[in-house]
């Protein structure tokens, strides 16, 4: 055997020939040139239409109450929790890219962290909508959810996973927003200095807080950026852990399992990377950003997707195994009912989407071809939604007593709310692309060849 390990030349993270100036101009032009491709208008219009539908569905919900949804006993948790878990999971990839890959010194995160963080924030907003409206009476949520001294002298139940969830998700949203904004400050200063229009200069100037790139400022900035990454890392792992507690703390067969926290976290990162790929592949094409979001980025993301997909597959297998091995007839029945009961097509489609499809990613040609990669990512997006459907619905609809069994059918209003949040996400994301640089300009500058210090540590 050859004693030396083989080395393969890595594809570049940034195509050759770029300078500080060309990087700045290319990324900021998307915002400042005032021209957007036709596809931007088309997609934003679709997003706004769907937002209108979401508004209609929520209005009707507030007028009539949750009776317009398909939920009833025994399935009291329907689309609201399925969509909540799906959206919040998608957010996790953004934090993973921005925080965990920063701590692991993965230089390739630089071109994708900004829009992945934006994706996180918008996904958490879509997720947060569901707990807010799921009672149909959101104005009462204030004293149900938040500990504040109210005239009834009642307080939330801190032993409940649902309250943990409130704290986890609101902290996650706040910290993600802070992290994103801190990363944006130097780029907002760039936009301020490059903008021609006076109003724009003032707007970006205010948002940049008067940032001037002083070394003293940079030192504190870099210090807290690292600290924020260190704080976000346990935070992101805790968020989906707490989400899984919503299920695992209960005694319902199929929910009460110790595998849930790691299995949920892996599923979240899996779904999130699929969504980052879904967004990155069209964006780099439409805006001609292939120089910055290179094949190496796509391939690395595909590898993370494959890895987390395998962990998720392990989770499914242990769920099935424990169902039979527990010798608990309710657990055993639950998994048998999942596979062969009335919802069997959902379960097997889920296995197809989440276990079989990502196996294509073993092949390098698939990992480095945008179109097949995009298709795999889309299938995974659907599969992860189905996973939450299967966990929520099939566990609830036939639990301990056959006399209390029932079926769950989502109504038109359920679908309108879900598809409406897709529209909300698209709208927010496309407005973000229009108004803010979708790639971190200052971090890309530090990746340029001219940034290298003689004998320096590099960044």
């Amino acid at each position, binding site marked *: 055997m050859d004693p030396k390990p083989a080395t393969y030349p890595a594809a570049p993270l940034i195509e050759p020939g770029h300078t500080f100036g060309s990087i700045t101009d290319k990324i900021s032009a998307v915002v400042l040139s005032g021209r957007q491709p036709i596809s931007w208008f088309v997609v934003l219009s679709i997003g706004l239409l769907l937002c209108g539908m979401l508004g209609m569905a929520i209005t009707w919900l507030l007028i009539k109450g949750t009776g317009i949804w398909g939920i009833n006993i025994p399935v009291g948790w329907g689309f609201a929790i399925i969509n909540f878990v799906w959206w919040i999971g998608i957010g996790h990839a953004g934090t993973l890219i921005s925080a965990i890959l920063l701590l692991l010194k993965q230089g390739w995160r630089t071109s994708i962290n900004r829009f992945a963080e934006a994706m996180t924030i918008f996904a958490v907003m879509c997720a947060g909508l569901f707990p807010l409206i799921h009672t149909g009476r959101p104005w009462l949520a204030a004293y149900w959810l938040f500990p504040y001294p109210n005239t009834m002298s009642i307080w939330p139940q801190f*032993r409940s996973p649902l309250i943990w969830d409130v704290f986890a998700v609101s902290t996650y949203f706040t910290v993600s927003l802070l992290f994103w904004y801190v990363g944006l400050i130097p780029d907002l200063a760039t936009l301020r200095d490059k903008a021609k229009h006076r109003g724009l200069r003032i707007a970006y100037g205010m948002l940049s*807080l008067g940032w001037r790139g002083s070394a*003293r*400022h940079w030192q504190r900035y870099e210090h807290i950026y690292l600290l924020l990454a260190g*704080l976000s890392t346990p935070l992101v792992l805790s968020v989906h852990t707490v989400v899984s507690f919503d299920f695992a703390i209960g005694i319902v067969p199929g929910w009460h399992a110790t595998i849930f926290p790691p299995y949920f976290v892996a599923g979240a990162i899996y779904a999130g990377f699929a969504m980052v790929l879904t967004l990155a592949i069209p964006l780099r094409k439409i805006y001609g950003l292939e120089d910055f979001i290179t094949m190496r980025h796509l391939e690395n993301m595909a590898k993370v997707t494959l890895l987390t997909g395998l962990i998720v597959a392990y989770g499914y297998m242990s769920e099935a195994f424990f169902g039979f091995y527990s010798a608990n007839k309710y657990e055993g029945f639950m998994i048998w009912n999942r596979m062969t009961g009335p919802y069997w097509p959902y379960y097997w489609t889920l296995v197809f989407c989440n276990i079989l499809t990502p196996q294509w990613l073993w092949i390098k040609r698939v990992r480095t071809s945008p179109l097949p990669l995009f298709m795999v990512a889309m299938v995974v997006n659907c599969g992860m939604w189905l996973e939450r459907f299967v966990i929520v619905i099939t566990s609830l609809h036939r639990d301990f007593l056959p006399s209390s069994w029932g079926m769950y059918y989502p109504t038109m209003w359920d679908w309108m709310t879900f598809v409406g949040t897709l529209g909300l996400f698209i709208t927010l994301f496309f407005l973000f692309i229009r108004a803010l640089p979708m790639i971190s300009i200052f971090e890309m500058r530090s990746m340029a060849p001219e940034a290298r210090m003689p004998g320096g540590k590099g960044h």
Partner: protein
Amino acid sequence: MSTAPIYGLMAEFDTPAALVAAAKRVYAAGYRKIDTFSPFPVEEAWEAIGHRDRRMSFIVLMGGLVGGLGGYGLEYWVHTMAYPINVAGKPLNSWPQFIPVTFEMTILIAALSAVIGMIVLNGLPMPYHPVFNVPRFEHASRDKFFLLIESNDPKFDRQRTLEFLKGLDASEINEVAP
């Protein structure tokens, strides 16, 4: 050359390496009221001007402690004093179930103090600053590197400092209006 008071003298460089080399010489010459400006963080630059502020670690640690103790304290007070409810015979202070909120509050307050601390210690927001009076300074957020010696530095002398900066390979030197 006019005699109106100035805020300082600013030299411009094309690469971070040139900036750091110049900053080291300026520091060695005894100037202390100096600063560098770059379009991305250059670790060697703040080392060259002798700046390292370690207060942020302490601020974030304090924020985390306040958040954690505050979070647990709230739960303890609510469940043992303000609104005690017996759930499944668990003790009123059922601490394992109080951990998730304690943890989240630790992270939340630590992160808030990190960001607010950074902004306050940096003296931001500051919409006006004399360095923006230099027209070339808009390149500080794009592709150029700047070194500033403030006029209130005890060693500052308009003529001699200018001569000194000219010997530093700067591509351009500007006076900064106050």
